[in-house]
């Protein structure tokens, strides 16, 4: 049977189990959208900006634990995806982005809406393709999904010239993808697993450090069992929040620049760190030379480049986190439980003491709302069960500190790249993936304006998201740095000139509520969360509140600025 390139594309997308794509049409992709209209079982969510499509695919991927898909046109449509692709690349999010391209005969001619998107995205994709032969289209799409979801996941871009989409060819389902040059290693070395258990038995002050890799490999259960069995306290990177229950007594809170006092001190004091699915980002390590000076490190990662990159590791384990942690757990279960918890009492007492003396704190007075208070009340109002997305900056850090995630796939944030404008489209994607869940974007007044147009997407597609704006009329995180390190010279960070967010919500057809009274925070949250449809809840908060603790850039993580 002869099919067009566009028909093959849709057939192949469906064959990968995809039921939702986020897109925006253009001249180069008309054929695809024309065909899509005949496939009601493949939902196309029309965004209002291509960046939104990619972030939405990212949110969808993380909430649903699958490959996200975005579809955009050539030229500016393609370049608008770059930020979203780079964010997904840094956070290892499986995603396939389809871009339209000018007809193959015009490539290289500086044609209308032509860019070399394969060249542009080479460093920020896991892999990318320009399809030049319609006979290779189906196999290429299958390969793209395979690469996106396997090994260390990541975004893959497929560039589709218009003549390829229009070509009519005999369709044959491709054979299973087998690449001689790409065979990720999932199985960890058994000797290394045994070595890890030996190191664990010798450790007196162990800490588990969980990252996004634990969530991506669905290894939370194994990680949690290890922690409980050997009474090992657990900290996480921003990307690792939810990998271990945030309400458990062994949970230390987040690690790093805005980590909790006890998490940072634990790492500084620890004699053994079991790092799973982390890459020791600079926001986590602070000064690498002073990072965990007393600790041996076991590092589990599927990507060998993550190992020994920033931090020397004594026991590297290359492989899938879930398989490796399950292997370690198996070996531990054969040991006498007493041998696994030697001297754990004093260590846990020390941690409890740090928690007691220096908890995360703020003081909510009667006059002005504290942003942390809003997040804490949101946590209570949603019983910790909402999917939370964030923008980037203070809002993101307060969300990470004061909303306690008990489950993976519930905290969706642009961790590595730090993209402002991520939260709203990501929330829309998460809602599309999990229609029965409450999805809340914790936003700042600055970043919400970066992709505010996606309100229309939420409303049109009936993807009800709740947006909590912590409005301090500043670009708060930059202002905080200016306060600490630039003599309070608040250059270019004042955001007093802002739209009326309540009226703005109404203009889009959403609901808007504003609150400036600490006594009415809970009431406003309740109202906003219970009101059907997409809702903005704007909280006018303390203007010059800062995120604490803070490790100044380049400092040791145990040297924190505290409130």
């Amino acid at each position, binding site marked *: 049977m002869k099919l067009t390139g566009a028909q093959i594309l849709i057939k192949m997308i469906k064959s990968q189990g995809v039921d939702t794509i986020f897109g925006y049409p253009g001249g180069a992709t008309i054929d695809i959208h024309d065909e899509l209209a005949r496939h009601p079982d493949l939902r196309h969510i029309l965004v209002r900006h291509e960046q939104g499509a990619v972030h939405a695919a990212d949110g969808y991927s993380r909430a649903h634990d699958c490959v996200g898909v975005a579809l955009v046109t050539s030229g500016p449509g393609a370049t608008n995806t770059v930020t979203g692709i780079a964010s997904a690349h840094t956070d290892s999010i499986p995603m396939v982005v389809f871009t339209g391209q000018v007809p193959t005969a015009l490539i290289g001619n500086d044609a209308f809406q032509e860019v070399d998107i*394969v*060249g542009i995205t*080479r*460093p920020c994709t*896991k*892999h990318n393709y*320009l399809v030049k032969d319609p006979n290779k289209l189906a196999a290429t799409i299958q390969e793209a999904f395979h*690469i996106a979801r396997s090994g260390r996941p990541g975004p893959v871009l497929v560039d589709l010239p218009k003549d390829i989409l229009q070509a009519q060819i005999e369709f044959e389902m491709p054979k299973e993808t087998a*690449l*001689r*040059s*790409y065979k990720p290693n999932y199985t960890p070395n058994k000797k290394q697993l045994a070595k890890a258990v030996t190191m664990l038995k010798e450790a007196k002050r162990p800490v588990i450090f969980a990252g996004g890799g634990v969530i991506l490999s669905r290894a939370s259960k194994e990680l949690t069992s290890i922690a409980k069995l050997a009474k090992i306290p657990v900290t996480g990177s921003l990307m690792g929040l939810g990998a271990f229950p945030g309400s458990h007594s062994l949970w230390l809170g987040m690690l790093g620049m805005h980590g909790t006092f006890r998490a940072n001190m634990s790492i500084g004091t620890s004699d053994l760190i079991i790092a799973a699915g982390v890459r020791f980002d600079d926001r986590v390590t602070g000064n690498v030379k002073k990072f965990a000076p007393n600790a041996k490190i076991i590092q589990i990662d599927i*990507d*060998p*480049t993550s190992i*020994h*990159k920033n931090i020397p590791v004594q026991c590297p384990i290359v492989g899938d986190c879930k398989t490796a942690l399950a292997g370690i757990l198996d070996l531990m279960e054969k040991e006498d439980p007493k041998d696994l918890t030697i001297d754990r009492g004093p260590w846990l007492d020390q941690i409890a003491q740090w928690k007691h003396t220096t908890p995360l704190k703020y003081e909510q007075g009667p006059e002005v709302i504290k942003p942390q208070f809003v997040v804490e009340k949101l946590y209570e109002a949603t019983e910790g069960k909402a999917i939370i997305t964030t923008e980037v900056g203070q809002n993101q850090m307060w969300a990470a500190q004061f909303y306690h995630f008990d489950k993976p796939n519930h905290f969706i944030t642009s961790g590595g790249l730090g993209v402002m404008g991520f939260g709203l489209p990501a929330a829309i994607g998460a809602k599309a993936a999990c229609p029965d869940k409450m999805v809340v974007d914790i936003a700042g007044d600055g970043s919400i304006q970066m992709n505010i147009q996606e309100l229309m997407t939420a409303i049109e597609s009936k993807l009800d998201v709740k947006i909590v704006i912590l409005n301090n009329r500043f670009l708060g995180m930059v202002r905080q740095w200016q306060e600490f390190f630039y003599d309070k010279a608040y250059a270019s960070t004042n955001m007093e000139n802002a739209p009326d967010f309540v009226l703005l919500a109404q203009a889009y057809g959403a609901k808007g509520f504003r609150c400036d009274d600490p006594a009415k925070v809970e009431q406003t949250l309740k109202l906003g969360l219970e009101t059907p449809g997409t809702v903005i809840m704007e909280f006018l908060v303390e203007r010059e509140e800062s995120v604490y603790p803070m490790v100044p850039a380049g400092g040791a993580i145990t040297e924190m600025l505290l409130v």
Partner: protein
Amino acid sequence: MKTNRYLLSILVDDEPGVLSRIAGLFSGRGFNIDSLSVATTADPNVSRITMVTNCDAQIIEQIKKHLHKLINVITVNDLTEKKYVERQLALIKVHAKPEKRAEILRIVDIFRCKIVHIGHSHYIIEMSGNNEKHEAFISLLQPMGIVEIASTGSIALARENGK
């Protein structure tokens, strides 16, 4: 950290953009390429890239891992610590003043090179050899007055299969 000269032999899929992926990896991560040679192998779908880089031991580990991570890279073989044959080809245009011609011919002879062109005022010499021979030869010709040099990067093969 102490830097060393490393010689990598990399087999890649012969596809458009592969060289760009490798070059981009080096520029994007601040790694250094001293020389690079690319050509197809006996298998028309596979190209061999021979690369020389100067860096420390930790960086070469990262380079090898990152190269291997590229989807189109089939194998990365570090020849540095192995037994291998290495060659570079160079064409060297050198001033041939009458009083220096005999000396140039002597050096060319000792190094088993060839004069491939004789002009009124210069010779062009073809030389092939490993990096050390290359450097030694150039330094001896330097006093004669080198006009210009065109040189390939190193190419190399391991002496034993699979070692």
